[in-house]
């Protein structure tokens, strides 16, 4: 009994202490740590500054030197040389050699991920450089090497069958304790090649519930809270204890449409659905964003945003006319029918991003207003992919990342040239495939990009709804926080604790 009382007393005293009485920065986000495997959990390691890639990207998407200081392609574009940075050490003290880099990249491209989709034929270690040979010219290659799955780990990090067993990276922070699925601790790595980070210790905690994350930010139990829901952003904005950051990112909330579905095969039908959506209302009331999407790419992705496109509009009357023109007639229950078929669709979505089910609920009402019946299926995100593969998906409400690599052409290639699990379904357009490949090769420029966005806007194989904003709450006293629109890093090395 005495021990218990002592414990309780200790607990109460601990409670009274302020949350941030140490030199550890508490980072909280929704992502759970699976294992030390870079192809699955690697994005947490890169964001936390534990591992690095050959190339990095600035907020505008311009590639900057990472572990490679320079890269060039030879004349026919089939061979790329990446000059490696001198004096880089892994966290186990060994030097980063060209052999180690080549081996890490070779392992990375055998695993599922963007690298597997590049035309790489071989990766060779040379003197202070790696040489990557391709079967086809591919100008976007350096951007692919900025993807987290291309992170460079020491040879000792891999076990049997090339699975990641420990995380031995080169970043400014070095893991001291990895406890999947919920936490990791790291300290500043004294052998780092760049400037030493200001905060000596960082801790990452995965908190999957957005309500809880917001509460942790509010109560000061975490210093750096990533991914907040719209309501919490509004609430935390009023708080003195935290600063809320919000930045437009190349991620788009959109409806993936099965163009093989009898009700959705005509472009007019897809346009009618698009006209039924009140994007402005969804943006302001549900997402609490300043604006709704008017096309696929937000203005922040300058090279792909196309000012000459006619903006996507809200016009239910026009939508009904379009559907009438396709032979749909209003049934007694307010749902359209054609040849005995009801205009009834299932919208599949997933709760990982809290705003998706909310937007789905709004869409259900807005589609009903033009006579389309929507059943919402909120399930695991994998059902989108599975439904794409077996053709059972009608509509999918998804948040698609066009910044998987810091160049949207990567996503365009995998989603629309010709189809993709998270892009076009049952819709093929030879012109867009050719154009996307030419942009990927490097010989298609602004006109090709403009034409791609124009085709997507008129054919609507996917229906854009809103441009995402990434949100972050930072405790007062933490300075220098910046959101990376490409979602590659938390920017921890630049943070300072002012106390």
């Amino acid at each position, binding site marked *: 009994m005495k021990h218990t009382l002592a414990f309780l007393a200790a607990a109460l005293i601990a409670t009274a202490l302020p949350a941030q009485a140490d030199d550890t920065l508490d980072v909280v986000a929704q992502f759970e740590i699976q294992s030390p495997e870079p192809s699955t959990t690697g994005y947490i390691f890169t964001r936390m500054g534990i591992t690095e890639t050959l190339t990095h990207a600035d907020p505008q998407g311009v590639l900057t030197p990472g572990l490679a200081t320079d890269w060039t392609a030879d004349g026919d574009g089939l061979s790329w040389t990446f000059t490696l940075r001198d004096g880089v050490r892994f966290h186990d003290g060994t030097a980063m050699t060209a052999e180690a880099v080549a081996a890490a990249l070779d392992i990375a491209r055998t695993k599922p991920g963007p690298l597997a989709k590049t035309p790489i034929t071989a990766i060779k270690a040379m003197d202070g450089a790696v040489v990557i040979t391709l079967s086809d010219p591919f100008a976007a290659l350096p951007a692919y090497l900025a993807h987290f799955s291309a992170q460079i780990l020491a040879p000792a990090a891999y076990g049997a069958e090339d699975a990641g067993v420990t995380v031995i990276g080169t970043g400014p922070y070095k893991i001291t304790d990895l406890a999947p699925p919920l936490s990791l601790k790291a300290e500043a790595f004294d052998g780092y090649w760049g400037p030493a980070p200001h905060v000596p210790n960082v801790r990452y905690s995965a908190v999957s519930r*957005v*309500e809880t994350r*917001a509460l942790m930010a509010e109560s000061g139990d975490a210093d750096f809270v990533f991914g907040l*829901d719209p*309501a*919490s952003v*509004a*609430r935390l904005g009023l708080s003195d204890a935290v600063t809320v950051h919000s930045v437009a990112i190349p991620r788009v909330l959109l409806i993936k449409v099965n163009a093989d579905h009898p009700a959705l095969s005509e472009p007019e039908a897809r346009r009618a659905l698009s006209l039924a959506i*009140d994007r402005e*209302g*969804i943006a*302001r*009331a*549900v997402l609490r964003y300043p604006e709704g999407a008017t096309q696929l790419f937000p203005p922040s992705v300058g090279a792909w945003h196309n000012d000459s496109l006619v903006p996507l509009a809200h016009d239910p009357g026009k939508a009904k006319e379009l559907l009438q023109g396709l032979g749909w007639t209003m049934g007694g229950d307010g749902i359209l029918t054609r040849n005995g078929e009801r205009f009834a669709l299932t919208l599949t979505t997933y*709760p990982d991003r809290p705003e998706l*089910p*909310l937007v*789905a*609920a*709004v869409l*259900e*009402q807005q589609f009903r207003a033009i006579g389309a019946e929507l059943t*919402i*299926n*909120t399930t695991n995100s994998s059902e989108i992919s599975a439904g794409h593969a077996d053709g059972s998906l009608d509509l999918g409400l998804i948040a698609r990342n066009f910044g998987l690599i810091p160049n949207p052409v990567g996503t365009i290639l995998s989603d629309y040239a010709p189809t993709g699990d998270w892009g076009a379904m049952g819709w093929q357009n030879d012109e867009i495939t050719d154009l996307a490949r030419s942009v990927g090769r490097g010989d298609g420029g602004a006109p090709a990009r403009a034409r791609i966005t124009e085709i997507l806007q008129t054919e609507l194989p996917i229906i854009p709804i809103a441009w995402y904003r990434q949100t972050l709450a930072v405790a007062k006293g933490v300075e220098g926080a910046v959101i990376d629109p490409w979602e590659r890093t938390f920017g921890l090395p630049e943070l300072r604790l002012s106390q």
Partner: protein
Amino acid sequence: MTDAVMIPRRAGHALRWTGAALVAASLILAVVGPLAVPGDPLAQSLTKALSGPEPAAPLGYDHLGRSIFHRLAAALRLSPAIAIAAVLTAGLAGLVLGTWAAARGGWTDRILTMLADALLALPGLLLVLMVLAIVPGTAPGFWAGLSLVLWVEFFRLTRAATRAVLASPAVQATRLLGFGPVYVFRTHIWPEIAPMMLTAAAFGTATAIMAIAALGFVHVGMRAPTPELGLMMVELLPYWREAPLALLSPVMATFALLLGLTLLAGSRDT
């Protein structure tokens, strides 16, 4: 731990009546409410999001501009409906199997008891979660899972009481007189177990409603936009500062309903 020791009989009666009144009140809200103030639990008007009460929506609007009153009424129909369906199924199964086990004895009895004991060793929520993952559809999944959890209690009660009754001289006399098992069940067994069954049913209903709400609250139960008590709470939690009444409505309703059922069941602590 019988009521007689715990609470004076009059107080016990008063508690039960309070319980009945609370349950009745929530059911009246659920059934009569939408008749008195017509409205749609799913209809949204985004411009009214989180605004306060008005005649068409006596409890105000939620974050999507849906009437909380009508969502609450729908939720108060949904959970009890699933719960009662599960309790009826479980009660019937428990009654039949329990009487059967007690009457037959031997291996029938042993196997059924072993199965019941094994199920008793599994947390109910775990079973419901697993059944939900196997059965397609959330409401049928809840019904099946909860029935599987709840039958054990009815089975054990019935079996114990039936064994005692069957061994009594009165039943042996009845049997000697040539009356069949149905007669024995009606005149001897049922009167003995009926009060216990009602108590167990009230507890079972409360358990079922709690399970549905708890799983809804952690996002593994009913799915949006279905109005469900736990789901409503978790949806409205982020808006606590802006619209406290919106969150308090499902919280108070759930508490009243569960308190009512607990009181109705009488005090029984295990």
